[in-house]
């Protein structure tokens, strides 16, 4: 405590340690909580992929699925689809966010779309799925199409995400500067007390 900043720094360390510990615990628990591990596939989420994905969606998905918050209605009446497939095809507005956090949901959709096979289960990611295969495996573009439509569905689930991340950069920069300034200010306030 002869060091004039000694007390403050020392007393701050346990708080910081705890924050780090708890943050680490939360991250660890979230990692442990993940059910199925998806292979790490690289999907581009840039504007072009989203645009291509929207085209894929319009040609290959709108027959049965809608995205009501973007104004896409399914061409087939849901009741008719239910008779054909045994289940009403879900609206896909939020599907990418309902199947995982961050971009997990998009990767899930991609995996699902490319995992059709000839076994009675039809699909290794979603066994006994009602949905027939969307793309023909003979289509040389089918993996790219699956990636693009996954990117589009992630966009559709939260169109404001780009704006959010953009604004977030400024907010964080501002907050970091503000925190440092307030810290220095506080240090000055306590200078005389700590000397005693």
């Amino acid at each position, binding site marked *: 405590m002869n060091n004039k900043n000694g007390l403050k720094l020392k*007393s*701050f360390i*346990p*708080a910081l340690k*705890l*924050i780090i510990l*708890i*943050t680490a*615990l*939360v991250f660890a*628990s*979230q990692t*442990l*909580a993940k059910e199925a591990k998806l292979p790490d596939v690289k999907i581009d989420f840039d504007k072009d992929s989203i645009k291509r994905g929207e085209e894929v969606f319009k040609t290959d998905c709108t027959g049965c699925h809608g995205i009501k*918050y973007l104004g896409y209605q399914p061409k087939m009446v849901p009741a008719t689809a239910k008779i054909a497939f045994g289940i009403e095809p*879900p609206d896909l*507005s*939020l599907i990418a*966010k*309902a*199947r*995982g*956090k*961050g971009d*997990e*949901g998009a990767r899930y959709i991609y995996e699902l779309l490319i995992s059709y096979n000839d076994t009675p289960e039809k699909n290794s990611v979603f066994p006994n799925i009602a949905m027939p295969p969307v793309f023909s495996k003979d289509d040389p573009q089918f993996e790219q199409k699956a990636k693009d439509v996954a990117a589009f569905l992630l966009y559709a*689930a*939260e*169109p*404001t995400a780009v*704006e*959010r*991340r953009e*604004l*977030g950069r400024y*907010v*964080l920069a501002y*907050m*970091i500067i*503000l*925190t440092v300034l*307030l*810290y220095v*200010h*506080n240090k000055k*306030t*306590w200078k005389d*007390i700590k000397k005693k």
Partner: protein
Amino acid sequence: MLSKIMEWLDKRFPLTEFIEKHITKYPTPKNLNYWWNFGSIAGAFFVIQVVTGIFLAMYYKPDTHLAFDSVEHIMRDVNYGWLIRYLHAVGPTGIFFVIYIHIGRGIYYGSYRGPRELIWWIGLVIFLAFMAESFMGYILVWGQMSFWAGTVVTNVAGALPVIGSDLAIWLRGDFAVGDATLTRFFSLHATLLPIGVIGFLLLMHLTALHRVGSNNPDGTDLDKKGPAMVPFSPYFVTKDLWFTALLFTIYFYFVFFQPDFFLEPINNEPADSLKTPLHIVPEWYFLPLYAILRSIPNKLGGIIASQGALFILAFLPYLDRSPLRSARYRPVKKILTFLLFLDYILLGYVGLHPPDDISFVGLKMSDFGLILATYYFLYFITMPFWSKRESTRPLPIAGRL
């Protein structure tokens, strides 16, 4: 000019007196460490919830046919609606993180002991009210997890003997969670609980605190006019400000870059009473209590245990028989309390996983949870015995109870 207005006011209303007593001149122990910052941060988070809640209520529609769509309307069409909604949705994580530390600090440094019993009890009721508040708010989204969490929790109430089924119907306003439940939860969530209960009790919490004064890391009684004190302003205003800014930086990181980190993905599917989700998991801050609930094989026993885990905290002022407050000078309390904190975190880990999973210690989750729950209760039940006998280290100044 301003001083004249103040003079006029002060003759009719004790404004200056109030500000001096509760803010500027409130004598605060200068040896407070950073664990004492978390109360005011909890207050700051509460203000954020109230302000964002006011705006959300302008666009939200408490109707089972409209609720989910109205949340998406806020996310997509309302100007900065996504920001207001995410601030409000991530906020509870901040509140509970901060409150847990605030309570842990109270336990460790003996802030619950006389003459601060009333502050402690009011604080516990605020904690309970925040739990009710966050639970009801979660239902309002009307996603799959909203509906099923509401069903599970009201079923828990329904399992109570004699009054159970009537109580469940009274809570839901119907035989099952539905429109009546949504509207009453919206009303309580937006009016009575935040303003009438939490806001009111926060004022009582502070009023009682300012009557007896803050505890300090040594747990000693300090002379309010003595050299151990500094006025709250500027010393603790600047200290609270910078530390709040630090925690809000972390909070904003999650709001802007990982808003779904603490939320269940499945809640992005609209509520469907015919489709039960695979795992029904509560929010992270309920996990330890959920683990206690599940670790008792008997349903009613589980309810009593998980409620008792909260209720037993109220007896803390009388369970502690030591002549000292702070664990800093009580080696036995220090070790047992750190173990209690670890125990509670591990209970959270157990609550996150299905009861039949194998935990990292090799035991089944439900068995591990039972052991952890036992330690939790033993800490409190055995406290009168060890706190009376433990040898204490000498205090820096006189201050034995």
